[in-house]
């Protein structure tokens, strides 16, 4: 085959499968390497000892009981949004509109709290909020899905644009609802607490955590053990095969995105009704984008996503703590997060592909038939 040329130094081939402990070992090695690079960067940029930085990151999440609950809350919301985008991703429908869908869900929740706050009993109000947020966000997600199903419109770009339309809608309503004209809606219904989620056992975030835990199990079961889950993974693997087998691809796309939107709506509901009790353009806080990474890093498996969302929430809390302790800019945490993500993303290559170096016998380029 190689005629007069020489065999290249190395060639890449795809692996068939790797035992799970090897692939996790590779990922762990990537994280360790990333931490070393982060340490170098930290010392170079700020002159602070990297061990001090790492200790602070750990302190940010586990330093006090309150901090631990904040970490759990962050984890829960991020996990909720990641659970939302996972069915879509498994179907290879790149839904990066999570940000907008969460905002629309939150907006619907806030609208209910605002307009119906004093007109109906609290229990009924919360029920209305749940329905409204889920329906609104599901519709928001169904729009790009419809166009993808019918005319193969690029869903990455469509969902991306829908995010910014959603942000402007929220901004508009914030302006309308705010009587003072500053564009910021304060805490909604502070006196009557109408529409505020009940606090369980005195722990402010416990309800959110419990709801998301239930959702995690639910989504895992849906993806793994139901017919719908099977259909959507077939569509993701090969659309042609799905059609051949008789699966209605348009229906699956629409159904999955409605589910995706509905779960984002729940995240918005938890944020507005359970945590913040207000709405603003930063309510989603970039989680729609972070969720893409959480979901992808976990290979779209909801159980692993608990770990990856823990990692990202941990880093986020840690970077706030760094900013506080060392007077460093809050964005330093973003830099560290970016570096760790690059390494993890890069490590996937070594899991999926194998590099084979040329052996001594092939150096002279003998031709094999």
């Amino acid at each position, binding site marked *: 085959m190689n005629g007069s040329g020489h065999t290249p130094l190395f060639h*890449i*081939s*795809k692996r068939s499968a790797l035992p799970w402990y090897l692939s996790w070992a590779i990922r762990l090695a990537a994280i360790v390497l990333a931490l070393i690079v982060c340490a170098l960067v930290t010392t170079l*940029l700020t002159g602070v000892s990297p061990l001090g930085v790492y200790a602070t990151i750990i302190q940010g999440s586990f330093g006090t009981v309150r901090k631990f609950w904040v970490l759990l809350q962050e984890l829960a919301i991020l996990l909720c949004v990641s659970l939302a985008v996972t069915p879509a991703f498994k179907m290879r429908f*790149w839904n*990066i509109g999570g940000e907008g869908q969460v905002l629309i869900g939150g907006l619907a929740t806030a609208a209910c709290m605002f307009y119906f706050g004093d007109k109906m009993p609290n229990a009924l109000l919360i029920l209305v909020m749940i329905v409204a947020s889920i329906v609104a966000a599901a519709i928001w997600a169904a729009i790009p899905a419809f*166009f993808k199903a019918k*005319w*193969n*419109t*690029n869903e*990455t*770009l*469509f969902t*991306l*644009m*829908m995010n*910014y*339309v959603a942000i*402007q*809608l929220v*901004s*508009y*309503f914030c*302006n*309308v609802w705010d009587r003072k*004209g500053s*564009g910021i809606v304060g805490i909604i219904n502070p006196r009557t607490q109408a529409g505020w989620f009940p606090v369980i056992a005195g722990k402010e975030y416990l309800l959110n955590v419990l709801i998301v835990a239930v959702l995690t199990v639910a989504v895992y079961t849906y993806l793994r053990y139901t017919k719908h889950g099977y259909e959507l993974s077939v569509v993701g693997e090969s659309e042609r095969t799905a059609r051949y087998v008789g699966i209605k691809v348009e229906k699956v796309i629409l159904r999955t995105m409605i589910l995706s939107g509905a779960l984002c709506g729940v995240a918005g509901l938890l944020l507005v009704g359970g945590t913040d009790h207000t709405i603003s353009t930063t309510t989603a806080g*970039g989680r729609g*984008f*972070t969720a*893409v*990474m959480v979901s*992808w*890093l976990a290979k779209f498996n909801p159980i692993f996503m608990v770990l990856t969302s823990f990692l990202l929430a941990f880093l986020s809390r840690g970077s706030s703590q760094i900013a506080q302790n060392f007077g*460093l*800019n*809050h*964005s*330093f*945490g*973003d*830099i560290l*997060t*970016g*570096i760790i*993500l*690059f390494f993890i*993303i*890069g490590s*996937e*290559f070594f899991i*999926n*592909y194998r590099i084979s170096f040329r052996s001594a016998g092939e150096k002279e380029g003998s031709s094999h038939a």
Partner: protein
Amino acid sequence: MLDTLAFYISRAVQQGIPLLFGSTGETLTEKSGNLNLGIPGIMYVGGICGVIGAFFYERSLASPADINTFLAVFIPMVCSLAGSLFMGLIYCFLTVSLRANQNVTGLALTTFGVGVGNFFGGYLIKIGGSSVASIALSATSACFRKSLPFASKLGAFGTVFLSYSFLAYLAVLISLVAGILLRRSRVGLHLRAVGENPGTADAAGINISKYKYMATCIGSMIAGLGGLYYVMDYASGVWSNDAFGDRGWLAIALVIFTIWRPDTGVLASILYGGLYILSINNILPTGGAGAVKELYKMLPYVMTIVVLVLTSVRNKKENQPPAALGLSYFREER
């Protein structure tokens, strides 16, 4: 009346130039099949690198009057290009050599880039010791903003066409050249082939990795210049964290709106720039409610969605996104 319109158009152009830089860069990248969602981060890095270069150059001067115009422009530009190139290389290495998922890599790059921009911005603000949360590089900015001296004497025509600084004209030039390159040169043909069907292009002997690397890295450098223009020109040398805002995403929207044609971007970016400032200046009727301004800000994105839907419905071959957009190429899987 004509003067107001001319002034408005010139402001629209100034808003649109960063978008033009960003969209031309991203168009080149997307034509090679790489969907670089890291462009917002790259524009941030381009801006902050230029600021770093200018900051240290200004500090090294004995007095502000000593400033050498050429160096004051050259140093920030080189820094900006270097920074954006570095970001582009990270993206290329991860997606082309390591075949990582492009959406995830791009979003991670944006997080990283915005973090770098805000971190160094905060750092310089601390060194500069100013009381407000911004750095003002007026001397450098004045060098960047030098426009043709006779422009003001030519009335409305001068305002609309001649009153910009060299970076603006450079943006237009780059876009036009990119458009011609894509459509009428062999290199452009090869690039388009790589983006449409890398398997076929590979079989024809085109080096896929090389084209992807070149297109993405050159695209990043062009986009980084957009960040530089924003800080030095539009914002008059003032950097404050997060001031750049969501313009990077607007640039990505512009790529779709121009149907992946850089030369259309020249006019389209002025349109987007104009829409952006419509909501700021009270030109369109708001009925007395400030809230309606927020709805106007939606217009560029809604228009992009409309274009996206229309092109997919009518499905004309020339107007589609590159067929292999977002996909990694691995020869053995062909």
